């Protein structure tokens, strides 16, 4: 029996050891309902505010304008419920595509990068000044790992007086995020993409804009998200953010080495492999590939039976794999059922905290791929 090799970090990062420790410590403090006025209530509030500070530091937002939600998806829904006019890119996550219900879709080119010329012309055509318009573009695509030119998106959007939301779920922990510098209006994050537990996300907002909450009740999270806070999740998210809070610029070299090693092996062993977004600026940990005649679900099953955990297309809760809308949007419609994603740890810090993946194992993986 081979050792299980996990290469699906873009789906979820395993709970980091330090995060787990912080959560257990938190559990041992006692009853922590942050809305209570007494000793334990104050303790709870402190924990939440510390987490907010840690996350704020990681994304350079010092205004405390962070609302905790159950997931990035919930944060996106909370935000989108406030807008009638939303413009999205064609490669957004389903959390954005489904909840925006938008018919205004900006295409991407074959490298998976948003078409800025199209966007400029489109905004000129449809934005009406009397109606607030929100543009939603992801920072890093979850399937290809392609980094979007978010600064240019913001520049064009501002020219047309649009507000900008950036889904940064896949950017967090992989590249530097500077909320203040960017003139972003909204940012959404997910805890389990950086080693916090699942069930915790956040909306970062520009405090000049009033939002209406979608969950009403006891007025938690400044009235923006009622319901007793998920204090263990928040504690874990804060701790994970603290662990990431070191300069990331040089913090992905080892991840990149492994990803590139795997990429080279595949190109050598199976040259007809297509690497999506190969020419684009990608984060260091992601590679999305396809073979012309091999359905992605077959590849995934065979690799799983060989103890490699990877992912393909977009899976419904039934486990049924549908075609990848991202691959389709990049113009590879015939390969949309064939793509398979390998995602390594988001950065070197997480790579080291995990059992290191060896080049020997990656070589075996590349051989499995080439024998499909």
């Amino acid at each position, binding site marked *: 029996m081979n050792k299980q090799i996990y290469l699906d970090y873009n789906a979820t990062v395993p709970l980091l050891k330090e995060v787990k420790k912080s959560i257990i410590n938190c559990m041992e403090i006692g009853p922590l309902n942050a809305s209570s006025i007494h000793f334990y209530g104050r303790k709870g509030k402190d924990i939440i505010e510390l987490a907010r500070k840690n996350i704020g530091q990681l994304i350079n937002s010092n205004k405390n304008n962070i609302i905790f939600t159950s997931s990035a998806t919930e944060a996106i829904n909370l935000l989108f419920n406030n807008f009638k006019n939303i413009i999205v890119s064609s490669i957004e996550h389903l959390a954005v595509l489904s909840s925006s219900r938008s018919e205004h879709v900006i295409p991407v080119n074959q490298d998976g990068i948003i078409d800025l010329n199209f966007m400029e012309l489109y905004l000129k055509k449809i934005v009406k000044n009397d109606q607030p318009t929100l543009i939603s573009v992801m920072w890093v695509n979850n399937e290809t790992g392609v980094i979007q030119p978010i600064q240019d998106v913001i520049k064009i959007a501002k020219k047309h007086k649009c507000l900008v939301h950036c889904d940064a779920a896949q950017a967090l922990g992989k590249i530097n995020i500077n909320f203040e510098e960017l003139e972003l209006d909204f940012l959404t994050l997910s805890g389990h993409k950086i080693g916090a537990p699942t069930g915790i996300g956040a909306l970062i907002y520009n405090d000049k804009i009033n939002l209406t909450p979608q969950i009403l009740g006891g007025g938690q999270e400044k009235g923006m998200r009622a319901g007793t806070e998920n204090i263990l999740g928040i504690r874990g998210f804060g701790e994970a953010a603290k662990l990431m809070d070191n300069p990331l610029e040089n913090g992905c070299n080892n991840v990149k080495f492994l990803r590139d090693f795997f990429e080279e092996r595949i190109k050598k062993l199976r040259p007809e492999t297509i690497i999506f977004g190969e020419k684009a600026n990608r984060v260091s940990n992601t590679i999305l590939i396809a073979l012309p005649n091999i359905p992605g679900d077959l590849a995934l099953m065979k690799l799983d039976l060989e103890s490699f955990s990877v992912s393909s297309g977009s899976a419904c*809760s039934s*486990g049924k794999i549908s075609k990848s809308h991202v691959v389709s949007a990049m113009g590879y419609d015939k390969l949309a059922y064939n793509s398979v994603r390998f995602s390594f740890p988001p950065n070197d810090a997480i790579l080291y905290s995990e059992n290191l993946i060896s080049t020997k194992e990656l070589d075996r993986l590349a051989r499995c791929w080439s024998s499909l």
Partner: protein
Amino acid sequence: MININQIINEMDLEGNPSDHRVVVAMSGGVDSSVTAALLVEAGFQVVGLTMQLYDYGRALQKKGACCAGSDINDARLVSSKLGIPHYVLNYESIFQDQVMNDFADSYLKGETPIPCVRCNQTVKFTDMFSRAKKLGASAMATGHYIRRKNQLGNPSLHTGIDLSKDQSYFLFATTKKQLDFVRFPLGSLTKEETRSVAKRHELNVADKPDSQDICFVPEGKYAEVVRKLRPGRIDKGDIIDLNGNVIGKHNGIIDFTIGQRKGIGIGGRKGVDDSNSILYVIALDSKKNHVIVGPKEFLSCNKIKISECNWIIDLPQKSKFKVLVKLRSSSEPVIGTIKANFDSSFVFLHFDEPQFGVSTGQAAVFYNINERSHVLGGGWITEAPNKLADNNINNA
């Protein structure tokens, strides 16, 4: 009592069970779940595959319902309990093309189709087979009550021990080549034994009722499904008697089956009360959009043409031989004589006794006249001329 060694022997795979990967087609029902359980017990490397065939939420017209329904989830729970990998195959478009469209078109032609056989023939025993092979499996097992015997390297197909559950009618199209790869571990079990295995393994499906309907037809309302699949193609028309008199109206010939007596919608006719007055659907004329009704004697059918024949035996030398033939899944087999020219894919079959209510679109499945359990093959009934047709031919 179930003998696991017998199960291992019947799997007919050389070497140790642990040397072999076996894919189990898991529907989420108790039969395929127990198939997987028995093979795990026997020591095979079992992999569960479940087909997603249609959008369950859409079929039931439930807003917001998951596309998968509860069966896939049951299959997953069973796999998890058994500790085996389980995957879902997205066969929605193949199923639509090869099974549902055929089902609808068959009804439009005035036939009564059996989509389950088409599904076995295409999706299950073609696409899923190929997937199982690609996954490196030595065999694919299903939960059908049917037996595969291998004598002298020549596998043959036999009815299940539990005749009340026998599914050979639905598997006549299994080719000899497919029979090399497919296995039916439940063929030697009774349904009670199957349920007892499920209970012993504490499977959540142990008491799940057997499925009764065609999977994509909720509550047996097949006509509604056909109307949805072929909107605008189903017209109202006349119900006529044997003399061509219009005696009623219908909402579409798809609502009728040859031999149907109840619910024709022409009740309460005055002045007729002899036994000959009970009217049956004698024919469905899709060209004129007529439902033709008449007394039972006109249903009598002496011979049928059977197309797309599949033979699971070495072809007999004689071109004329007697077989037992089953004309509906629920009916007892009858005796007939096959006249075959094995160069062509169709045969003619003459009944010893005339049969009533034979409908095209159904399968005719042949069994050995000397060994009732041995399935010889079968095909699709494409012509079943009854007395009405004979009359027309005579008049012509």
